[in-house]
């Protein structure tokens, strides 16, 4: 018997071809698990194709809060023939593999439990029910009440009509019978502690949290071009556009997308665009425009491996340099990289306010992994935190000059049609009124005015969060979505010598970063890229060379195990 199955934490992986309905099973199970009183986390990896291939989803079920990917597989539901081979490196002697007897008829291994899912499904009405039967079996094995499972099925399939719903409920019941048999066989003994409080918690998805952050940040205009993994944010905003007074427009390309956003922002609507590396490469000229005409915009980037098209559906942290140095000329900016849901929400909302306050482009630099994960949390918006959006727009008078040079560099921001002044902006160097100029002395002043804003932006930097003991010997550095695996690895190692410095804003770099680094005997940085882009930024800004670099760039996130392994090694070297 797998030791994990009697523990507090089970990792279930569903694997099958694109189009075989894994996402449906995932959607049902994550809900059922949460309603059953367990903590749940899910993460997916998939191929860039609509049919075929091998895609997998991990669902973790735990008595503790979890928000990270693990390599370990306790139960594998092999929906396709190729699933076992696809995941062979993660299957251990403790993995229990469950699959359909017909699909897996050529697979000869003692650890495979074959069940006639398809046969039963056909007797109910068709092969489409096979996944629901499997979900039901899992739900039973996890000791989730059948009423809860039925509640999930009903919520999901009610809109598909009574006949389909009836079939799915029947399929679920068949699954529960299979689950009973599996339990009787003694191969499973899952004793995860339930907490009834969890039933009422929020079950959230990464991209939705960014979406809530955008809504809370007062977004009023979004134009984008579909691109994995950020299309889902576009879908979110489009879906909520009517209720929240937002214009969503699918642009003809990324260039139009960001330029429309800047036009909307110039006319007073908080603007957003979302893309990934290649798409953002097309937007970079307009990043310079945003800086030059001092017109705010928020750019959400879901990173994926490059260069060029790279691995379109997988995860990476390879575009920090691109974002940091994007656009011609020199212009201030801010880059947020939240690593958990609370930060994703508040940093996104903050991004809109920082963009408005300093009239600059602001980036939310995330990735595919973060976009696609689900987990439960007690609340996202707490009562204590009052959300207020910064009001930057002023009513103009006849003497209004858009780029008036003032102390902090932040000229009052007028918009056309509000007041008696005229709002003139120009991508060329311009005078205070906004008209084109080649007065070189004025040029110098304008550069200084724009860069002056960086001082304010620095004062507003969100400091990194130090997690762990204050008198650490080893300092782990991470940014963005590596938060989950690093945090869990540290929790598991229970060391009083290792702390984690988690950056949720990577630029400008927090000014006291060096103090944290110098207090450690050893520093190690985890990044999903091959060059340690953030490590290099730290060196550039502080002169400090991070000692060890744990870099992963195969398109998968760090797993908890990998982080633990790396940390154990460095710990032993002390």
């Amino acid at each position, binding site marked *: 018997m797998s030791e994990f199955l009697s523990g507090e934490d089970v990792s279930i992986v569903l694997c099958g071809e694109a189009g075989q309905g894994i996402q449906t099973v995932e959607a049902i199970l994550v*809900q059922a698990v949460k*309603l059953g009183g367990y903590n749940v986390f899910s993460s997916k990896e998939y191929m860039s194709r609509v049919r075929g291939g091998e895609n997998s989803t991990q669902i973790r079920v735990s008595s503790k809060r979890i928000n990270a990917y693990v390599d370990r597989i306790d139960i594998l539901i092999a929906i396709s023939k190729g699933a076992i081979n696809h995941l062979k490196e993660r299957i251990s002697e403790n993995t229990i593999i469950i699959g359909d007897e017909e699909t897996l008829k050529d697979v000869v291994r003692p650890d495979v439990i074959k069940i006639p899912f398809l046969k039963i499904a056909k007797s109910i009405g068709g092969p489409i029910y096979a996944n629901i039967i499997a979900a039901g079996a899992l739900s039973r094995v996890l000791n989730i009440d059948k009423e809860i499972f039925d*509640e*999930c099925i009903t919520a*999901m399939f009610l809109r598909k009509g009574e006949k389909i719903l009836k079939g799915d409920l029947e399929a679920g019941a068949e699954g529960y019978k299979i689950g009973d048999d599996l339990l009787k066989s003694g191969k499973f003994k899952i004793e995860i502690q339930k907490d009834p409080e969890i039933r*009422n*918690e*929020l*079950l*959230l998805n990464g991209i*939705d949290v960014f979406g*809530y952050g955008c*809504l*809370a940040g*007062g977004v*009023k*205009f979004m*134009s984008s071009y579909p691109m994995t993994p950020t299309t889902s944010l576009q879908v979110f905003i489009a879906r909520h*556009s*009517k209720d*929240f*007074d*937002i*214009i969503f*427009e699918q*642009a*003809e*390309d990324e*260039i*139009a997308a960001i*330029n*429309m956003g*800047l*036009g*909307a922002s*110039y*006319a*007073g*609507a908080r*603007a957003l665009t979302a893309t990934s590396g290649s798409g953002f490469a097309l937007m970079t*000229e*307009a990043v310079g425009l945003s800086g030059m*005409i001092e017109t705010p915009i928020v750019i959400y980037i879901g990173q994926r491996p490059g260069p060029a098209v790279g691995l379109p559906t997988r995860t990476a942290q390879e575009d920090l340099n691109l974002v940091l140095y994007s656009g011609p000329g020199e212009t201030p900016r801010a880059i947020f990289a939240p690593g958990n849901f609370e930060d994703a929400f508040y940093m996104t909302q903050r991004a809109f306010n920082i963009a408005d306050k300093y009239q600059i482009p602001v980036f939310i630099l995330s990735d595919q992994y973060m976009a696609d994960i689900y987990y439960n949390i007690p609340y*996202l*918006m707490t009562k204590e935190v009052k*959300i207020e*959006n910064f009001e930057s*727009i002023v009513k103009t008078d006849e003497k209004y000059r858009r780029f008036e040079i003032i102390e902090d560099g932040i000229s009052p921001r007028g*918009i*056309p*049609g509000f007041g008696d002044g*005229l*709002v*003139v*902006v*120009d*991508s060329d160097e311009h005078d205070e009124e*906004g*008209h*084109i100029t080649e007065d070189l002395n004025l040029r110098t002043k304008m550069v200084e005015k724009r860069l002056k804003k960086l001082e304010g932006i620095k004062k507003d930097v969100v400091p990194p969060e130090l997690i762990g003991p204050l008198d650490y010997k080893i300092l782990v550095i991470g940014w963005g979505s590596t938060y989950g695996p690093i945090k869990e690895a540290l929790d598991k190692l229970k060391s009083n010598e290792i702390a984690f410095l988690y950056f949720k804003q990577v630029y400008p770099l927090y000014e006291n970063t060096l103090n944290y680094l110098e207090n450690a005997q050893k520093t190690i940085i985890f990044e999903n890229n091959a060059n340690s882009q953030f490590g290099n930024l730290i060196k550039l800004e502080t002169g400090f060379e991070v000692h060890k670099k744990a870099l992963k760039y195969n398109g998968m996130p760090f797993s908890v195990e990998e982080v633990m392994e790396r940390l154990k090694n460095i710990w032993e070297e002390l």
Partner: protein
Amino acid sequence: MDPEIFDVEGADVAWCPGCGDFPILRTLKAALAELEIDQKKLVLASGIGQAGKLPHYLKSHTYNSLHGRALSPAAAIKAVNRELTVIVTSGDGDMYGEGGNHLMHTIRRNPDITGIVHNNMVYGLTKGQASPTSQLEMKTPLQVEGVSLEPFNPLAVAIALDASFVARTFAGDVEHMKEVFKEAIKHKGFALVDVFQPCPTFNKTNTYRWFKDNTYKLEDSHNVYDRNESFKRAIETEKYPLGIFYKNENRLTFEETLSVYSEESSPLFERKTDISKVKDLIELKRSVQ
């Protein structure tokens, strides 16, 4: 209204003496004055090139954008504040070359804005290279053997895309130009106006004289609602017709398709997000979805 209201005091105009941009600027001011357009509600957007500088010489709100990109922000400006009159001034390089994709899709999107293209069939600001509308065999420092690419036909393309207003006028005929500008600005939907504009510095072929000799006015009897006939007239090259070629008044504008205006007409900057609605939305995630 006096057109002088649109004059910019002390503007340092960067155009060459004799440039066709001067009559276009003057005529646009006259057209705006005759239409009584409130300059506080007027946004001129432009890209890069000599034509892109026009907004600096016409007192209004101005969004002088990147090369080729003026249509995108112009459509968005109009979308978030329908009270504004939005006019794009662009050149043949800016609109038909660098911005070609945006032209195509802006025609499809049909925002209620006007696009005026100063078409001098040559690159001015970069000093004399071929533009998308340069005529075959024209020699330039880059097209040393003469232009070999077929000239771009903006009117035919626009009519093919069922643009809602397509016209051509000539900088040497101020009255005609003014009437076309007025009709274009009044038109509800995207109006494309191609303006034949002599460039005395870099285009020695397509001079005022040449345009006079090689153009004629569309007859009053031309049916602007007949798309096939309009297309036929747009592909004439023996002599180039001037006037309003085509109109489609049945198309919805981009703004008319936006749900933000289905119940409320105020510009978006006046609308604030109700945070409690965001909270309610999040709270839904406590129950089964």
